[in-house]
């Protein structure tokens, strides 16, 4: 009960802050920048009246934030309020890219295999979301979390360090020296969305299922 009340109070607090943020139009523009840059100090920055200087890609991010707020307004949930501008604490997702699974957090960058067709500053969406987790709950995909999408921005199209393949056979006049650099792509995770309606698993469910407790 104590944990439940604590969680409810935190939810009310976050909902209150969300309402305050939504009332004032200026913080809406500033939220994604501060959130992306410093997740821990995002609340302080949003509460302060400062307005950070914005550039073109950040403007597009603010546009994305605007659409997020627009979509969330007609569907308010009292139990679990939708908070597109600010993410749930400890939010992360497991996505599959190129046959590999990565743990992604909003605001962090990730180096994956070369994504053909994606240029620098492109916005991409990752659809194979296998799991979404927060501090209090977990959405386990079967095999994927339906309707969950991870949005990211392509930062750089680069190459891995050079790998030298050297072959040599003595007394046989055989010698090979091959260099190879694997292409990669660095992406920055912007947001994780669309998982709220999926059935979740919480610690309470696990504790109730455990025998002998």
């Amino acid at each position, binding site marked *: 009960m104590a944990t439940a009340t604590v969680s409810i109070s935190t939810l009310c607090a976050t909902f209150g802050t969300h309402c305050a943020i939504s009332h004032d139009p200026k913080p809406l523009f500033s939220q994604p920048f501060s959130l992306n840059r410093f997740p821990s100090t995002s609340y302080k920055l949003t509460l302060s009246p400062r307005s950070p200087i914005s550039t073109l890609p950040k403007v597009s991010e603010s546009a994305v934030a605007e659409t997020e707020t627009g979509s969330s307004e007609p569907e308010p949930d009292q139990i679990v309020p939708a908070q597109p501008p600010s993410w749930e604490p400890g939010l992360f997702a497991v996505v599959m890219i190129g046959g590999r699974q990565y743990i992604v957090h909003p605001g962090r960058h990730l180096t994956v295999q070369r994504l053909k067709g994606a240029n620098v500053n492109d916005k991409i969406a990752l659809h194979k979301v296998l799991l979404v987790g927060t501090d209090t709950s977990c959405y386990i995909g079967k*095999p994927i979390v339906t309707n969950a999408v991870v949005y990211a921005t392509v930062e750089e199209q680069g190459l891995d360090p050079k790998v030298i393949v050297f072959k040599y056979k003595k007394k046989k006049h055989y010698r090979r020296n091959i260099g190879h650099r694997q292409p990669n792509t660095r992406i920055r995770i912007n947001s994780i969305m669309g998982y709220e309606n999926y059935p979740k698993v919480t610690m309470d469910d696990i504790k109730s299922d455990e025998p002998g407790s």
Partner: protein
Amino acid sequence: MSLVSSMFGCGVVMAASQAMGIGRRSDGGLTIVCSSRPQKKATAHHMKTRPRKTQAWDRNRKPTVYDPLPPLPPDWTLVIPADASSAPVTPPPPTPSA
């Protein structure tokens, strides 16, 4: 007296046959005993000792059969190209459906 001698003669014949029979039996047993557990070597030994499924619970074991996976979405899709995002000030981002 002839009857007695004839009976005696029969007794002698029986004894001889019994003795001969006993000897043959012992020979057969020894042969069987010797040939029942030979010490096989190399391939014959491997053929004899390799693991085989003999129990019903073991013969019925097979690889796990899972349900086929539903069709999965692509790994990634392009939402907003760089040129589109750079050209206008506030481009309207499309909402992709999984």
